[in-house]
């Protein structure tokens, strides 16, 4: 064997072993498990055929979870990708100078904070009795809008989604700042000579030039929405009922509260397929663009 190949095997072996055992094997095993019915502490696995999947397509909680993650995805693309791009374009304005850096740092701080911390603070804001949101509504004469934001099935998922927007818009903004930095300056200079204003420059230069990042940011945001777990788990536990459940919180509940590991594996398989479809769409769009 050539020395270089031996080197390759030796040096990459630890990485390959760890990844194979803890990333790729579980992925395959999950599909396998989804055709069985078993509990966490019982070694016996009973074949279930397509039973878990039949249940999946008729389970009303799955429908709720799919609707919720779709809402999550649509609102996240609107706020994170939309607002993120606008903020990035604003922070790339030369006249801001040093201030641009300061605002960028500030806007990114929520991204690095633990979701548990953020979720607790917003749970205080949403508190029906002492929360700021209801107090603010009462203060401006909209007291009749006050409600238990996290405790009512009509509003719980929106209250949870809002918190994710607060945390993540800075992340997408940062991606766009990096993309905008690589746009040739002379494009803007030429547009300025033609008399194009800042808004026209944004739509005619910035947006088309960051097209690739728009796709990446949308895929990152949508994939994040399909797999979202922590925010709903911490703030509502998926409730009341299953009203704010996502695929991941419902999978968690199936596995660790109801001890239906096979069914949880089927839900995980659904999450996997959904994220793969989005990733493949990205590859397709990129393939066409090139």
């Amino acid at each position, binding site marked *: 064997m*050539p*020395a270089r*190949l031996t*080197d*390759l095997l030796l*040096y*990459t072996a630890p*990485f*390959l072993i*760890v*990844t194979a055992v*803890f*990333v790729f*094997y*579980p*992925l395959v*095993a*999950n599909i396998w498990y989804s055709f069985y019915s078993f509990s966490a502490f019982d070694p016996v696995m009973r074949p279930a055929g397509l039973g878990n999947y039949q249940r999946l397509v008729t389970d009303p909680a799955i429908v709720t979870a799919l609707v919720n993650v779709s809402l999550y995805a649509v609102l996240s693309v609107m706020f994170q990708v939309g607002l993120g791009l606008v903020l990035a374009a604003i922070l790339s*304005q030369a*006249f801001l100078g040093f201030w641009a850096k300061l*605002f960028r*740092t*500030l*806007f*990114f*701080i929520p991204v*690095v*904070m*633990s*979701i*548990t*911390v953020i979720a*607790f*603070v917003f749970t*205080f*804001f949403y508190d029906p009795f*002492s929360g700021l949101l209801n*107090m603010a509504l009462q203060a401006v004469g909209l007291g009749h809008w006050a409600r238990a934001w996290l405790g009512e099935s009509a509003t719980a998922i929106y209250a949870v989604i809002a918190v994710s927007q*607060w945390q993540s818009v800075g*992340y997408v903004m*940062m*991606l766009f700042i*990096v993309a905008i930095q690589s746009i040739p300056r002379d494009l803007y200079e030429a547009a300025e000579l033609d008399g194009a204003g800042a808004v026209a420059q944004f739509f005619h230069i910035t947006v088309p030039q960051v097209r690739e*990042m728009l796709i*990446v940011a949308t895929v*990152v945001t949508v994939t994040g929405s399909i797999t979202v*777990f922590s925010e709903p*788990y*911490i703030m509502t536990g998926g409730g009341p009922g299953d009203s704010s459940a996502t*695929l*991941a919180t419902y999978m*968690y509940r199936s*596995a660790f509260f109801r001890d239906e*590991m096979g069914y*949880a*594996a089927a839900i*995980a*398989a659904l*999450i*996997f397929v959904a994220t793969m479809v989005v990733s493949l769409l990205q590859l397709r769009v990129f393939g066409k663009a090139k």
Partner: protein
Amino acid sequence: MTSTFARHPGRLLVILVLLLHSVIVIYPLFWMITNSFKTTQQIFEASWTMPTVWVVENYVKAWQGGISAYFMNSVIVTGSTIVLTLALSSLAAFGMTRAEAGGAGRAAGLVLMACIGGMLVAPQVALVPLYKMMQALHLHDTHLALILMYTAYRLPITVLLIRAVFVTVPRDLDDSAHIDGCTSFQTLWHVYLPMSRSILLTASVLTAYHAWNEFLFAIIFIDSDRLKTVPAGLMNFRDALMTDWGVLVAGLVISAAPIVIMFILAQRYFMSGFAAGAVKG
């Protein structure tokens, strides 16, 4: 100022948007800090005011009432994850770089595929088998379980990041190290790693960020309260402190502080790492 805005009316709008968004971002942070110095009564009655009496003991009570243990657990898990992830990633990136240069490019390409494929797998998708596996390996309820999980799921992206820098190391340096009698490992240690300090720092802060904040694995693989990391431990901390809000909020500030401070100090590395991570993904 007036004349500037008269000439550039858009600038006023830009500044207004920035100020408005600043308020939205700053207010919850400001709320956290002011309320961490209040009594429960004060928070309940008027959480938007400044503290009338600054209750510094909230921090002492939070630290002694559980946060210190979670904090130390997070330090252990995060530190070990950084060391393990960087070590395994550097080795793999080095092996791939040399194979590409030495004519084993196709084999290295397969490893590259493993990296890209690994990045596409969300932990959520592998949870049930991982849970069974950790039980079978008797790793359930140990820090090692978390360290292994975090390392495994950070490896693919970290290998890609480090490899991208290793391939820029001039071949001449590698060859002359070989002529000087360096073993391949010595070449990695004395040539490649010192030339890649910046990316190693970037990879470290990114790994730290993920390990410090990770929540899903942290609640599933650790049952004992004394072994919990900060994000998972805060759940118990909250349940134990339902009547002591000021202490709870102080605990939140302590939990968020290390990573926020690290971000402000090492901002350059955070930004470049996050950007590279997303684009490569």
